[in-house]
């Protein structure tokens, strides 16, 4: 299958005589040096990637990394200095002005960081803006706008003005305005960065929900790794105009390619402060070494639907873990609990960071045992809990 969007060796340089900058870039001169010697600012330096239809492609980087410039090159709000952008087999960089306008009116929608809603237009007229520019009749465009407003969950607000809406709602309008065009491609320029964290999370989920229905090709800019990880099918990390790493969320987390990316991924952990205590569950049932017989333990496993069970001694310290198969065999053969193998179980303290737990738990069939300072069992963490917790925080 052909790619939806193909970007080849894209360069954007601001300043007079930018082609000089392209030469310098090709000679491998650094960004700072080009700025000081040639008075040229490198926005995007030789970037190539492709985006497939229906994919959410996230471009992440700090401010000044060139991510917004890159996005604006895709619909030529910024004229690329060099390189090619091919969308559906058509070279955007070669389009005439009228062709470009037609392309913007039909194929590509854009959502802005600060919403960029028109304050003197109602929500309905804001959403209908693109259609109005396209020349759609008033009745038709208002009907489509109304449907789109309902799609983003704002019905009832269509006759209000943007200033009467909260930030999150305003960005829903921004999203609706882009969606009303029914474009193939959505460009989203840090759309949720101006929102507070709770609303941001909600909007991310909303976007994913809409995406399931609509299956657009989305190119999403953010400076927030959490957001990138929870939304992006693939993520490109930009620095100083270059893409320093491109891959899926897992690839980037597990194998950060250079220091810059490492710093980003470290920041994630620091900001999360996920520790064992915050994700553990109370054990549904434990086997008491001194008291319980094989049948009792099997009943406990059966009752709570467990795949294994932890064994504790009289002081509630973890002795190990039992496999149900071993218990079943013991029952058949009439063995006592002392005769079956007790497997070693990884133990961890309440305050251990989750990141280090991830590696510990991956090579054992048992849940992690969380113990307090006296080695007493206080909770368990199944691997699935850990993944769910990370996913909730947007890490995976």
């Amino acid at each position, binding site marked *: 299958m052909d790619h939806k969007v193909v970007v080849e060796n894209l360069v954007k340089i601001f300043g007079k005589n930018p082609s000089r900058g392209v030469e310098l870039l090709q000679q491998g001169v650094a960004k700072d040096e080009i700025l000081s010697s040639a008075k040229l600012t490198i926005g995007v330096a030789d970037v190539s990637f492709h985006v497939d239809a229906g994919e959410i492609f996230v471009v992440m980087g700090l401010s000044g990394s060139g991510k917004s410039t890159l996005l604006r090159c895709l*619909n030529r*709000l910024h004229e690329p200095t060099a390189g090619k952008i091919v969308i559906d087999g058509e070279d955007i960089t070669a389009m005439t002005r009228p062709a470009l*306008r037609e392309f*913007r*009116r039909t194929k590509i929608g854009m959502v802005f960081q600060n919403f*960029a809603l*028109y304050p003197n237009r109602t929500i309905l007229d804001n959403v209908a803006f693109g259609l109005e520019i396209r020349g759609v009749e008033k009745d038709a465009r208002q009907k489509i706008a109304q449907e789109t407003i309902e799609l983003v969950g704002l019905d009832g607000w269509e006759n209000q*003005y943007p200033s009467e809406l909260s930030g999150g709602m305003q960005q829903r309008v921004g999203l609706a305005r882009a969606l009303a065009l029914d474009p193939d491609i959505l460009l989203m320029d840090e759309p949720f960065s101006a929102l507070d964290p709770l609303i941001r999370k909600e909007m991310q989920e909303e976007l994913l929900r809409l995406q399931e229905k609509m299956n657009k090709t989305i190119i999403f800019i953010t400076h927030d790794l959490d957001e990138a990880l929870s939304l992006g099918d693939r993520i490109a990390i930009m620095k100083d105009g270059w893409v320093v790493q491109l891959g899926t969320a897992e690839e980037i987390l597990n194998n950060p390619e250079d220091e810059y990316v490492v710093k980003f991924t470290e920041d994630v952990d620091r900001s999360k402060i996920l520790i064992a205590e915050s994700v553990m569950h109370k054990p549904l049932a434990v086997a008491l070494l001194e008291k319980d017989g094989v049948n009792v333990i099997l009943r406990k496993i059966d009752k709570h639907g467990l795949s294994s069970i932890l064994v504790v001694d009289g002081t509630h310290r973890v002795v190990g873990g039992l496999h149900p198969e071993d218990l079943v065999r013991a029952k058949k053969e009439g063995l006592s609990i002392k005769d079956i193998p007790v497997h070693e179980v990884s133990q961890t303290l309440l305050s251990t960071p989750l990141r280090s737990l991830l590696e510990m738990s991956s090579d054992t069939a048992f849940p992690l045992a969380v113990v307090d300072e006296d080695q007493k069992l206080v909770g368990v963490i199944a691997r699935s809990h850990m993944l769910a917790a990370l996913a909730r925080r947007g890490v995976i």
Partner: protein
Amino acid sequence: MDGFRIPIGQHVDSLVDGLQEHVGFVFDWINDVVYATVMGIESVLLGIPFIVFVVITALIAWKLAGKGVALFAIIGFLLVNNIGLWQPAMQTLSLVLTAEIITLLVGLPLGIIIAKHKGLDNSVRPVLDLMQTMPAFVYLIPAVMFFSLGRVPGVMATIIFSMPPMIRLTSLGIKQVPNDLVEAGHAFGCTPYQLLVKVELPHALTTIMAGVNQSIMLALSMVVIAAMIGAGGLGSMVLRGVQRVNIGLGFESGLAVVILAIFLDRITQGLGKKKQEF
């Protein structure tokens, strides 16, 4: 150095002479259009019965600026009529309206063009400074030379005097449209015309209305001065009061000017605010 003097005055004289000689027909045409406009408006204003005028203006004031201004208009215009200055007041109003219409027709597009071209902005700004700070009386001289005496030169001098704020504030309003709104316009495929009409002008309207307000106020002050070259209206009554040291007449006609000024100011301000209440 003795005796040398740069002959600025002479050059201006010869420029005016040359213009009159070679493009005199243009001035004749302007003269005809302006005269017809002034007289047309004047005959309408004086043609409708006084009481109808008061009712209409009170309604306009009520709609745009509230009850207080409506009440003010009624009392004010009744007073002007009572002291026998209705006819000159309407002459003045028609001069102001004519000047304002032309100011709008020229100033609005000019302001837009200037906002879009930075180079032009730099070259036009000193001209606007000159137009605004040159003593108002100076405009009377070329106005008389091109259009002789009467209402038309009065209107022309008024236009020059009241044009700068219209151009400046239009340009300012357009330039102040937030960049992301303009960018959004482009992103949705606006043509330059669509961008202007659907994005920039609606957003700049409040500022543009401030320009209209300012230029009307300036026009009103200039129209009084223009009485010196026979523009007529309240200005000529003020002038007569000054010449005859008739304090009573001077004060009455001055008061009528003030009443007109307040009325026009509140209405145009109201128009700006009305548009702002999205």
